């Protein structure tokens, strides 16, 4: 029997970017806020001296403990799904204070105006026939102009260091900090792509270029390019993460409490109102009910989706009947497709590849959704191209030209020779949703508390493969112009399929936003249509994945959501947006 705790104004599930932003904004307003984090407490002092590739990049120290909970994966509805057993196969999402926001790379992009109205704009430009059967793309119920102030707000919070993308709409004001430094590789990429007529610019970064105090008074230190960002906590407090920004802000208030080792297992509700959450203290095994007036679910895509399904809130998506919403529109940047990279090897050029920063690089938007004319192409959406310098650590970077053995003397010799003599050109493409790609509860496998695991059913379509093939050719063109002596283009066959290495840390959907309760779970304040005092924030709200990294959009949507939460609390409730009643075509 769960012990009932004292009521608070707001309970938040998760302490990553989504939960952390909500924690800061609601605490500042004086509400009693409890934030429940399933993982342990840690902070910058835990990351000092953490330059340990084996521990963090190979044993995946900072990611979810899969012995307690994982998810299962299959391609088709008639198959039995199997569990994703090890982070070493593919690390997906984080845990502990600050969540995945602690071990991210800090790459910052805004999504495109067209992304938010993708269905309307596609039909307007090409006609409805352009959208393939079973592709369930839909508008977000928000426009770029509406979300722009919230992008700005998140960028100020995290001290983004960058410059205006020459091909995108002018920002309402410049980023708060200048871009990170140039390197031999960013100079080469920019020179080459400019000569080819493209529009390169410096990647925007949440690893800040100069010491910075954000509007909440939190200080982020200047990045020193030590090259341990991805999968690591920052040694220097130089990466904007929830711990040094929004959680620090929340913790300045006595009305805020962060409770670690608290695994939320249910959202409690009565008569279509959330009444709180039930969680397990993982250090004692005891269950607690935390009552609250407002419940904010701010976990990763999988946590948010699964909690709604386990708690029987919202209508589960049924792909056959094409009804329901919870679990639909899962999309991801797959490590084994979207993130496959073209690599160039230089016999006579040597770069300082060991140095870098998580969001250091040059990028270009010449092939984005708005730049391409899709009439002659065999895919929709678009992609970015970039060359990054994140720091190539030695266990995970042993690239050799095609035809080289993967072990033995020749492998050793060439992998050493090319360690600092190779560059990859990365493409990242928009990923669109499909009718039969979805999430539900697994009928067989259980977590450590006896609850069903989340099950992902997903497969690649020709669209997904074609866009990557096309992008790889553009990357190859650039590497040729750069003067690479050997170029490796990953092979993508019709058999390249979604598998246990396909779910990236950019996975989105499941509790998507929109303007119609029949096709979306939340409105553009991330407020559940079916339960007005429940806000589900994070990438779970994205109806599709764009071609750039998702965190800026998570941050922006969460800032908007917090405005909605405050309005809700101040004005005695109600839906913040009138739903569209007519079911949109899909």
């Amino acid at each position: 029997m769960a012990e009932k705790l004292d009521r608070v104004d707001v309970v938040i599930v998760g302490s990553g970017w989504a939960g952390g932003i909500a924690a800061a904004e609601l605490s500042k307003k004086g509400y009693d806020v409890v934030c429940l984090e399933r993982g342990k407490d840690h902070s910058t002092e835990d990351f000092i001296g953490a330059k340990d590739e084996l521990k963090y990049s190979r044993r995946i120290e900072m990611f979810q403990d899969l012995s307690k909970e994982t998810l299962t994966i299959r391609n088709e509805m008639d198959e039995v799904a199997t569990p994703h057993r090890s982070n070493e196969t593919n690390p997906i999402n984080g845990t502990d204070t600050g969540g995945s926001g602690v071990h991210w790379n800090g790459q910052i992009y805004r999504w495109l105006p067209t992304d938010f109205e993708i269905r309307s704009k596609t039909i307007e430009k090409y006609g409805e026939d352009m959208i393939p059967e079973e592709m369930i793309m839909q508008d977000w119920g928000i426009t770029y102009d509406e979300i722009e102030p919230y992008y700005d707000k998140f960028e100020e919070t995290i001290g983004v260091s960058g410059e205006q993308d020459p091909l995108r709409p002018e920002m309402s004001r410049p980023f708060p900090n200048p871009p990170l430094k140039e390197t031999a590789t960013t100079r080469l990429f920019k020179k080459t792509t400019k000569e080819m007529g493209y529009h390169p610019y410096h990647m925007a970064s949440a690893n800040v270029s100069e010491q910075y105090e954000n509007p909440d008074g939190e200080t982020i230190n200047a990045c020193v390019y030590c090259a341990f960002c991805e999968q690591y906590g920052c040694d220097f407090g130089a990466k904007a993460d929830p711990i040094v920004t929004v959680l620090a802000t929340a913790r300045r208030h006595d009305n805020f409490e962060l409770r670690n080792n608290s695994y939320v297992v249910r959202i409690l509700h009565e008569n279509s109102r959330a009444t709180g959450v039930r969680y397990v203290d993982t250090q004692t095994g005891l269950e607690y009910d935390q009552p609250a007036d407002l419940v904010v679910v701010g976990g990763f895509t999988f946590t948010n989706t699964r909690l709604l399904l386990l708690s029987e809130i919202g209508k589960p998506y049924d792909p056959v009947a094409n009804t329901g919403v919870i679990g639909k529109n899962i999309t991801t940047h797959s490590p084994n497709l979207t993130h496959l990279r073209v690599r160039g090897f230089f016999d006579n050029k040597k770069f300082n590849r060991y140095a870098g920063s998580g969001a250091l690089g040059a990028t270009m938007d010449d092939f984005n959704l708005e730049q391409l004319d899709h009439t002659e192409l065999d895919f929709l959406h678009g992609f970015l191209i970039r060359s990054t310098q994140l720091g190539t650590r030695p266990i995970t970077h042993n690239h050799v030209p095609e035809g080289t053995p993967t072990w033995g003397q020749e492998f050793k010799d060439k992998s050493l020779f090319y360690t600092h003599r190779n560059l990859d050109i990365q493409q990242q493409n928009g990923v669109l949703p499909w009718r039969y790609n979805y999430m539900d509860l697994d009928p067989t496998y259980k977590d450590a508390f006896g609850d069903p695991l989340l099950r992902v059913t997903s497969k690649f379509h020709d669209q997904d493969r074609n866009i990557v093939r096309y992008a790889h050719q553009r990357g190859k063109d650039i590497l040729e112009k750069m003067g690479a002596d050997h170029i490796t283009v990953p092979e993508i066959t019709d058999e390249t399929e979604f598998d246990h290495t396909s779910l990236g840390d950019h996975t989105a959907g499941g509790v998507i936003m929109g303007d119609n309760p029949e096709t979306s779970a939340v409105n553009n304040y991330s407020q559940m249509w079916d339960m007005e005092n429940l806000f589900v924030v994070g990438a779970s709200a994205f109806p599709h994945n764009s071609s750039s990294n998702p965190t800026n959009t998570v941050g922006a949507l969460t800032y908007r959501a917090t405005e909605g939460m405050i309005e809700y609390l101040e004005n005695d409730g109600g839906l913040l947006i009138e739903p569209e009643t007519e079911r949109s075509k899909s």
Partner: protein
Amino acid sequence: MTDNGNKINNKSTEEKQEFDSSRRRFVKNTGMIIGGVAGGSVLGGLLTNQFQSDTETTDGKKEPAPATEARMFFTRYEDFVVLEQATERIYPEDDNGPGAIGLGVPYFIDKQLAGKWGVNAKDYRQGPFLESDPTADMSSLTRGEIFILGLRKINEESQSRFDTTFAKIEAEQQDEILANFASGDVDMKGIGSNRFFDLLRTATLEGAYSDPMYGGNRNIEGWKMKEFPGAVASYADIIDEEEFVKMDPVSLTNYQQKS
């Protein structure tokens, strides 16, 4: 392969004596015979290291082996010898510098298998295990079990093809066997031989290039070959350099705060 428990296979024991010259000399000098009749205590004494010489350095001086180099996980020396030989073929000594043995990779792997990695502690381990052709991570076997099965299978293959253990065949013959494992052409119980080989290869690179505190990358020789500077606080002063900047590597021993 089934475990023989306390029974020691006579043939392989004799071969191991030959492989280890110092021990063979001792046996010859004392006139002792190793065979089925030898008592456990005599045999146990012979198979320990007390009669072996310490590592001889180039100037003829003897250096004791590092005190951290003893087997935690591998109970059979014979398995460990296969591990040494196999990792050395994957990452051989050459003009660039030491190979897997010289870098301490076999002891690194032994230590890893003795800890939580060897028993898949952070992995989801509930059955049923339904994957066909599972990777090492997805197998119902633990990583420790996969290593034992794989290394013994390597020795079995050597015995059946060349009538002697893996440690005693020529490098080309060792490569031939390993190549068959790598391509998945050797039948193994519960896991494809290519999956075992992938695990072995990855662990070898981990041992060559992880921080020396884990027991591999001895004397930071792995990083020296790789031109990886290791735990360097800041590259702010060189990040924009056009030319390559070579730096002496630093391990965490010299980076982390100490009392």
